[in-house]
């Protein structure tokens, strides 16, 4: 299982509202 990370916050917020799911925002300085 892998995490399918999104990078567009506004797109993620729209998805969250539509799916009624919470969001996890990970702010990192590590190489991606």
């Amino acid at each position, binding site marked *: 299982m892998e995490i399918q990370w999104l990078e567009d*916050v506004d797109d993620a917020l729209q998805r969250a*509202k539509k799916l009624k799911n919470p969001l996890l925002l990970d702010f990192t300085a590590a190489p991606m």
Partner: protein
Amino acid sequence: MYPDPKVTEFIVMNFIPVRLHVKKHPEAMERFAVQWTPTVLLLDSDGHERHRIEGYLPVDEFLVQLNIGLAHAAFRTNKFEDAERRYRAIVEKFPNTEAAAEAQYWAGVSKYKASNDASALKQTAQAFKERYSDSSWAKKASVWA
């Protein structure tokens, strides 16, 4: 944390995950008032911040913080029975983490908010005499005894 299968599964099952690199997304840092990494924000489906995790945590402590975030989200949206269930599950599943005492406190508050029965607070104060008595949450609950 993320290569850990327990963390990965929990995130996949419970959240829409967004990863933002500080150099690539400085505007997001400003938008969410993030000044340090790693920082993890848990937002409800309406985009309201419900929990903030700053700094690295080992796997179990990180998992418990994700659970606390979901419990807080239920509490802040007045789903007190759901919140109590989530807080009590944290105490049961992660009894030796720092957040367990916090969860015990909020479980009592959630029960009170759901029932309006002040005995829920008294029972919580009593529970702190038996467990997590050295925690700051025990001090907060002491006024209910």
